[in-house]
């Protein structure tokens, strides 16, 4: 089964890095968004299996985008990508319905572990 992923990050470098990690797994990156506003719009259009969401971004930040996505689609699987020391933002994100989080610099194994766990979870909501 292929996995359809939406990558949200304002840095091209991060998006490329994440894209490479996912494509190596044979997964499909169906969209990239540079800010929260684009993220919400693309989510509605693409309905991806998984979203990786940066927190600090211009226009609309990751928390607000997460909130909008999960209120509209409670089944959305969103993984937050935070920087070191953003414990409170991460905590907030978990309460807004983020499925999990990783802390940059991104460790490939850990990211994949997080993603696998979410995809394999026998979610009642899904």
């Amino acid at each position, binding site marked *: 089964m292929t996995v359809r992923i939406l990558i949200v990050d304002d840095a091209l470098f991060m998006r490329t890095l994440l894209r490479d990690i996912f494509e190596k797994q044979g997964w499909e990156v169906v969209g990239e968004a540079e800010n929260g506003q684009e993220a919400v719009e693309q989510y509605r259009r693409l309905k991806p299996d998984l979203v990786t969401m940066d927190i600090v971004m211009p226009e609309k930040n990751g928390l607000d985008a997460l909130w909008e996505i999960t209120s509209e689609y409670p089944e959305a699987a969103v993984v937050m990508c*935070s920087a*070191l020391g*953003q*414990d*409170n933002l*991460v*905590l907030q*994100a*978990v*309460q807004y319905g983020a499925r*999990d*989080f990783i*802390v940059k610099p991104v460790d490939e194994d*850990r990211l994949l*572990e*997080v993603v696998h*766990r979410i995809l394999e979870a026998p979610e*009642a909501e899904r």
Partner: protein
Amino acid sequence: MDMAKYRALFLSESRDHLNNLVRQVVGLEQDPTNHDGIDAAFREAHSIKGMAASMGFQRTADLAHHLEDQMDRFRQGGSVPASGVDHLLEGVDLLEGLLDDIADEKPEREIKGYLAGENPVVPEEEEASPTLPVSEEKEVPVCHLMLHLAPEAEAPSARLLLLARELQRLGELTKTEPGLEALERGEGEFRLEAWLRTELSPSRLEELLSSFIDVSHVRVNLGDTSTENREEEARTVRVRTDLLDRFIRLTGELITNRTLLQDAQKNQDWLQVRDGLNQLSRMVTDLHYHVLQVRMMPLQAVTDRLPRIVRELARKQGKQIRLSLEGEELELDRGILEELADPLMHLLRNSVDHGIAQQGEIHLRAWREKDQALIEIADNGRGIDPEAVREKAIENGLLTAVQARNLRDIDLLSYICHPGFSTAGEVTETSGRGVGMDVVKTAVDRLGGVLHIESELGVGTRFVLKLPLSVAIVRVLLVECKGHLMAMPITRVLRTLELERDQLQSSGKQLMIPLEDELIPLLSLRKALQMPARPMNSPVPIVLAEIRGRKVGLVVDRLAGQQEVFVQPVPYPIQQLEGTSGCTILGDGRVVFLLDLQGLFLPASTPVVTSED
């Protein structure tokens, strides 16, 4: 004799050691060649073994001995294989079960299966343990869970919240500690206690939960409240009612004092302010003293059983040894006493095993000197042979032949506290390998104390532990470097002095101070703290201290006096800084760090003062 008292102490201490052991083993999984980790894990197992043996819990002692052997093998091999980690963790689980048995006053469970090594996992019968609620209606049982996060886990509150969410999928989560709301406020630390009503078996739960991200350790028990109550008990103390009455009276007096000061301020009556402050200071001293009393226990609590243990140990080896005690009514902080039980045992064992050949006496004496407690353990045995220590130190690569030759005997003795050092040829159940001395030194250091060793061949050996009376409130020496105030526990300071520059001598490039008949190397606190160097003041302010058994002179910018302070742990995330052991807030609001000299002056990068400074 009240064995329950020791059992509680034994259990709480063993559980601490066990937790540390788990941490070390888990760390070794990531970094299998970490020598310090292997040494530390070895010491933890060793500590449990020693305590269990002296309490007469044979299976627990045997299992700990087995784990210790494993660690020793890994130490010699230089690394821990992955299968070794699994085996160790299984052993740790079993050890945990044994401690539970002891806590429940049940016979210790079987360990033969594990020791045989083929199928070492805890046998099925454990699940049918007597705590299983026997109920006709097949009620869904409640499990008690204890989850620990890896210390490197990011955003622990968020992680615990996610874990709690996972738990909700596995059953009915009846309670968590900290509660979910506290977690949402970000008040989680690195552990979560939970009560879960679930059909899943404890072993299945453990398996599921330990695979979760950032979870370092999980313990699951059937049954709901027993553990909770037991842990509650360990956190409580008995307080004499007259002491409580005293607190109430003092509170009343403080309230009156506040009114007096408020009035004085309103009337701008400075004389009355002064009287009020004098009163306040008297009351605070009084309160301080009595609050400490609550935490104080006589040394007797840990020395009571020692004479019997010594006699039995000696008899096993066909020796005749008598232990006499003096000053055991000396009162010490509970925290210190708990840390002390183990080191004392090790010192006595060393004396029995290695000190006294056939017949002799060990004298344990405790007394108080100002705000320090001193405990001396002296035997009239054969003494430590400095030549044997020299040879062994060279053999183990701790010293070069030249260094060993130049060290004075008394300085040389501190090397017996080095991990893995031993002059004893054989390994016995209770000591040997030199591990014991390592444990002693580490414990004394952790308490902010100092260990002195004196020994004379054919006359005997004398250990002196110099300890603070209380861990929380200590007297410190304040020093200043580049405008920053820092503190060191006064127990670690031998003396302070100020010398003119021309009184310093140089040996090569290194500057030394001549003191009595020895030359003491000068180290720079500025350099150790990576602050910019600058010309030394004249006279040069110097703190004479002992680091890893060697006298050194620390050059500081200014000596800023002594003070009694309330030490608090350094909060996350700055607790990771090497070289600090706590912090305190001064009267003017300034935060001052307590320096941990051992951590600050690591042997690899000793910041010596050279003639160019």
